[in-house]
């Protein structure tokens, strides 16, 4: 209790970044034989979460944050993903270990407990995980915490002490909102360009602490409300058709009534 209290008192501006270990974005996935999921492939930090980590580290470098804490929820190997974030410049990690695949609601509930424990002034998440493409967790966490949410952020402005201006990429273009702190931000593609981690940073990261806990330690009982009935490949698209020149292209378009 005393350590937690001390941590809150000393928190300055703490940023909590949530990261997910997901199939690498370059992988061409294949549905598995029993149609329950996809075949194993190379795993990496979800690209949007890399952007979130980068933003947290940049904030620290710009003296807008004092500490960047990274959290990941999943099996043992998530610790590798946390190490990558530590190598990028985060200060310490929290690994909530669980083998089961979680839906966003349960992820958000676990994160809620971590937030209550760590008292960050800002939560940074990736906009969506490129495996389930849900785009829900950040919004759910904000709802559970009754915090404002700045989703699909392409720019953050911390001019004020107590607020942040968020430029969001929306269907019609760009929208700017001002949020009170603490708040939840979900990071979009153009927020920043994540740094590569060089060997010295990777070596330094090995010494940074990672706290391993379980959902039970946080008082969260996982209760999935959804069941995946099956996973199937999409209808196959036949492609590879070629035309020799513009004239042939136009005649093909005309035959479809498109030109």
């Amino acid at each position, binding site marked *: 209790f005393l350590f937690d209290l001390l941590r809150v008192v000393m928190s300055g501006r703490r940023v909590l970044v949530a990261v997910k270990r997901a199939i690498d974005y370059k992988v061409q996935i294949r549905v598995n034989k029993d149609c329950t999921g996809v075949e194993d492939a190379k795993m990496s930090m979800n690209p*949007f979460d890399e952007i979130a980590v980068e933003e947290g580290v940049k904030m620290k470098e710009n003296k807008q944050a004092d500490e960047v804490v990274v959290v990941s929820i999943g099996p043992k190997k998530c610790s590798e993903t946390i190490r990558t974030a530590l190598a990028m410049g985060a200060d310490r990690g929290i690994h909530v270990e669980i083998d089961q695949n979680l839906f966003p609601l349960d992820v958000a509930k676990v994160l809620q407990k971590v937030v209550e424990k760590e008292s960050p002034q800002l939560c940074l998440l990736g906009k969506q995980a490129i495996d389930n493409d849900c785009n829900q967790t950040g*919004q*759910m966490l*904000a709802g559970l915490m009754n915090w404002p949410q700045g989703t699909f952020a392409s720019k953050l402005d911390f001019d004020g002490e107590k607020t942040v201006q968020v430029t969001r990429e929306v269907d019609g273009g760009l929208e700017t909102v001002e949020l009170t702190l603490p708040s939840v931000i979900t990071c979009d593609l153009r927020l920043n360009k994540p740094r590569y981690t060089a060997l010295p940073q990777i070596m330094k990261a090995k010494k940074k602490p990672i706290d391993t806990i379980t959902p039970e330690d946080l008082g969260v009982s996982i209760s999935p409300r959804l069941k995946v009935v099956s996973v199937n490949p999409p209808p196959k698209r036949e492609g590879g058709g070629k035309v020799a020149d513009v004239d042939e292209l136009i005649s093909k378009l005309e035959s479809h009534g*498109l030109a």
Partner: protein
Amino acid sequence: AGAGAERRSGKELTKVGSSGGEMWSRTLLKSLRGARQSSQQSGERSLGTLCIVEAKDGAGGLDSASKATLACAQKHLPKPFVALVASDAKGASEAAAGEIASLAGVETVLHGVSDKEGANGLLAEPLSQVVAALVGKLEPTHVVTGSNTFGKNLLPRVAALLDSAPITDVVQVVDESTFVRPIYAGNALSTVKFVGKGPLLLSVRTTAFGSEALETAQGAGAEVASVGAEEVAAGAAAEALSEWVGEEKSESERPQLDAARVVVSGGRALKSKENFEMLEKLADQLGGALGASRAAVDAGMCSNDLQVGQTGKVVAPELYLAIGISGAIQHLAGMKDSKTIVAINKDPEAPIFKVADYGLVGDLFKIIPELAEKLPSQK
């Protein structure tokens, strides 16, 4: 914020409706109460579906996401349905409400969540509380909205308030509790069953339901009413959390990207903004919208709202012209359901050719002018 952006304060709560408190017609309230009492006894819910749609000022009617939402509700979800119109302007809200009231299966259309100027009426923090309160009052079995940035921003927050797991970006309704949604950039389809309690929250992909025509009602239209004062008040506390500051929207005479019959899309190989503008003439000749790959947007060739892909817009037009686009997994996710795909690229190994019906290998800087010259002039 750039051109056309304005700062508006969202802090005043304007009174809804002229009479303040009287929001429901007596007969409607009585029939709903009666229905709910009997359904509570039988343990079933009385209202079918709550549809949440967005009406933007100057949009000239319901947008394609809203139409897809209503089409899904009409064709696949339990009736009757109540539609809630959220808007950034009172006029747009009322106009949309009128349009929805003439549809088959609608019982009531609610509007006037917020009379605030600017898009403060669309912010998720207060709106999610209003929706949650409305769900508590109406007890629908399903809540549906579009899977556009409005719905993506709003629905998960509503779900969290209701302690529910939503099913987002649905492309197919199997039955009232089972839905199909794309995962891994659309390279797999996941069939998901809701096994929770309480209302089922879902969002629908525009391209999956947008082409289903909306059925109009026989006889008199549905009741149009203002959202109840209690529900509006539920959002009041959350108004302190956020404020709409401004926006930068592209104005265009061309069709909307997510509803266009033809899309002319440019990628990295165009190299510059000036070159990208070469595609505008082509788009106009084909009567199409402009689209772009992530690389083109990143390079500043065009604005972000043109981006087609896994995390941008998903389109399924009659014709998709991919010009100077290599065809990365993430881009294909946004256009591989197009009816006819044409690809123009210098690299014969470009992955885009694997999905193209008509691929033309060559220099786009020669091909595009030739195409523009030989095509019949502006549609």
